């Protein structure tokens, strides 16, 4: 699975460069994101290329979220295509994840928390 990892200030932006996240590659996602999951990490998953997610894809993102939350870190999602969003809504995961429409908006939300904590 192709991922692009960039760092913007303190935020690790991970772009998923595949169009489908399903049972064939969701374990791979978990494995590739795992090194970034460190205490206090701020991770943004950019899903703009993703056109299809199944329940195992959802599960892998949930897995990352829970791990990060256990380490006082954060995981946010952005740039969700309509079908992907519909699956999140179907299993009510849009209430569990913080989802932003654009990457900029998501990055600002991390900063806002930083400023708020100062």
């Amino acid at each position, binding site marked *: 699975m192709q991922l692009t990892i960039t760092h913007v200030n303190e935020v690790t932006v991970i772009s998923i460069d595949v169009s489908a996240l*399903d*049972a064939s590659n969701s374990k791979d996602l978990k494995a590739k994101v795992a090194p970034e999951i460190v205490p206090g990490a701020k991770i943004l998953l950019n899903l703009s290329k993703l056109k299809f997610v*199944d329940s195992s894809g959802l*599960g892998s993102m*949930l897995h990352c979220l*829970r791990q990060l939350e256990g380490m006082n870190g954060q995981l946010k999602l952005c740039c969700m295509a309509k079908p992907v969003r519909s*699956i999140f809504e179907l299993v009510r995961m849009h*209430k*569990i994840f913080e989802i932003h429409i654009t990457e900029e908006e998501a990055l600002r939300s991390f900063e806002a928390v930083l400023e708020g904590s100062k």
Partner: protein
Amino acid sequence: MTTLLNQPPVRSSSPETGSVTGPEITGALTALELEVTRSLQAAFAAPVPLLSGLDLVLKSRQGNFVFLRKGVPVTPPVLMTEPETLPMDQVSRCAFVVSSTPFEVLARCQNDPALLSLAQLLVKNAAGLIESRKHEEVLMEEIAADWESLSALCEINSEIFASSTITDGTYRLITRIASLRLGFHGALFLRRDNLLECVVSTGRQSPPVPVDALGLLQPMWDQRRTIVLNKLEPEIADDSPENPVDDNPVDEKDVCWKHARCLAAVPMLSKDDTRGFVVVWSELEKHSVDTSFQHLIDALSNRVSMLLECDALTNAARHTELLEQELQIASIIQTTLLGGDVPADFAGVDFAALSIPSRTIDGDFYDFYKQGDDTIDLLIGDVMGKGVAAALLGTAVKNEFTKSVLSHAGISNGERTKPEVVVQQVARNLNVRLIEVERFVTLLYARLRMPSRILEFVDCGHTETVVHRKKCGNSFVLRGDNVPLGVAVRDIPAQHAIEFRPGDTILFYSDGVTENVNPSGELFGVARLIECVEQWSSCGPQILLDQLRRDSTRYCEKSAFADDFTAVAVRIRLDQKAPRHHLEAEFPRSLEYLSEVREWLEKAAALVGKEGLSDEGLFRLQIICTEAFDNCVIHGGSLPHTRPVRLEAQVFEDSIKITLEHDGPEFDPFHAAPPSFDGSRDNGFGLYIMVRSADDFAYRRKPEGLNVLTFSILQRNEEAFFHATNHYSC
């Protein structure tokens, strides 16, 4: 026998000459020693030739020795004083305990160690036998002691049931208690407000006693426990320290137990109160209440308590029993008369009904009236009120509908009588009568007209009807504006109509469904009902109702519902006759092929009418198939020689139907645990997503060990994108 007790023991120089007779020996031995002796004798009387050379000596407590000679069939024990005089050169000593008394036996024989160890064994066996027999005797004694009490209790039990009144019953009991020991008296005091009144007394009569002036018996009352007092002085029993001696002989201190020399008093306890007490006493100095008598009094007093409790309960129950009988009748009416036959052969529509009567019976009813091959009427209603009256009223309303439907059957001028006319006739016949008995009935009368796909309904104050429309992916409720029957004579019920579509699910229900409450008192509500319909309607009306029942039971955390639970589900089948295209494919059972499966689906979906299935439809098709494929790889993929997954697509004008066939273990998609929506679990969403995303979903197991999933996606022609749930009334 104590004849020889004080005589000097018989002396003898040798066992042969020192023989004495049985009775004399018994006198010189304690009962236990005698018993041990006899047991040993019995043990050694066994016809074992080896033992013939053996002698036994048992040392008695008084220092006597009992000599048991083996070799003669019945050897009387011989009592001696000097065991040393025995002419034996081999001695074996064996000690044992019977009834906490130590014994010692010397076994002697001439130069035979094997015989001695055999003798030891026999002695030990005999000792064990005696000990267990002793234990048995103790048990028997205890049982015998109890037997008296048991038979007394038994007799009293039957007496109680023979007595016609509570007074009679308690009188017999108290008399019985008193007669258990000659010279004892018994009395029963019952509480009325703050006075204890003597209801029964076998001794002198007693005036009422205030609950706080019981004198000697005060601790019994205050601490709610049995008290026993022995060795009373009569003047103490008549204790009245704060009251000067009154001239009036029948003052409140003139209690019946005033001359008691011993007494027992038992409080009559009910759940959170003390109803009264039983007192048993004797005025004779020689008497006392011992532990066993106390237990007996306790037991019998308990019977009095129970008798009183029973009486109170019977009075309360008489009323409830009538109610219970009524409920039984109502329940029979409910299950036999208030339901209808669910039509199984109505073209293009599937029906299911669920009716669970509650304990209280609300008179929910439903019925179907088939009007030819293309029209079917449906009635669902709920009588306000509970019990037999409500159930009977429900059947009366149903009867009126049957009459009205029959009188309007047939077609005149190419039209059937409108549903509102059917309801109006019923309303005319019932309104006045319902108002008279101050009852009202909510109901909904609906007609499904098949060729034109029109739903006409007359809603008389009934619960909103839920419609879930697969064609749009949304749900809405139907509500009419007529008042319930029995509310207003002038109200003329009017009908409304909507068009329905293939894939629609229509759910009619009684308020027991939505008014189910969870332990925190929240209603199940229409929103949860709609949620359930949206989740399960793709599986057909029967599975929908099964799941509604599961959801509701899980929600209210009870197996029995507080109100009648009635629901009728109707689903309009998809229009899937004569496919335009038919495609088949096989894919190896491996996750690598998931994207190929989706590409194949995309090709098939492009063949749906009006230039292919929408993106939304394709996405749902792909997610269902991906989840199904995932499942068969994950759950059945590790088996050797698994066959490839077979896919078949039937493409229709406005829908596509996929059949996915694979071998592997059987599964039950309808009884999986519901997914958790709180993010706590990574998995468990697959089946939920499949069932919910499909417009039609079915699972069957082929006998040759194949799992067959079929699911359809409808072309949505309205801009109700994805899982929108806009609820609006019609």
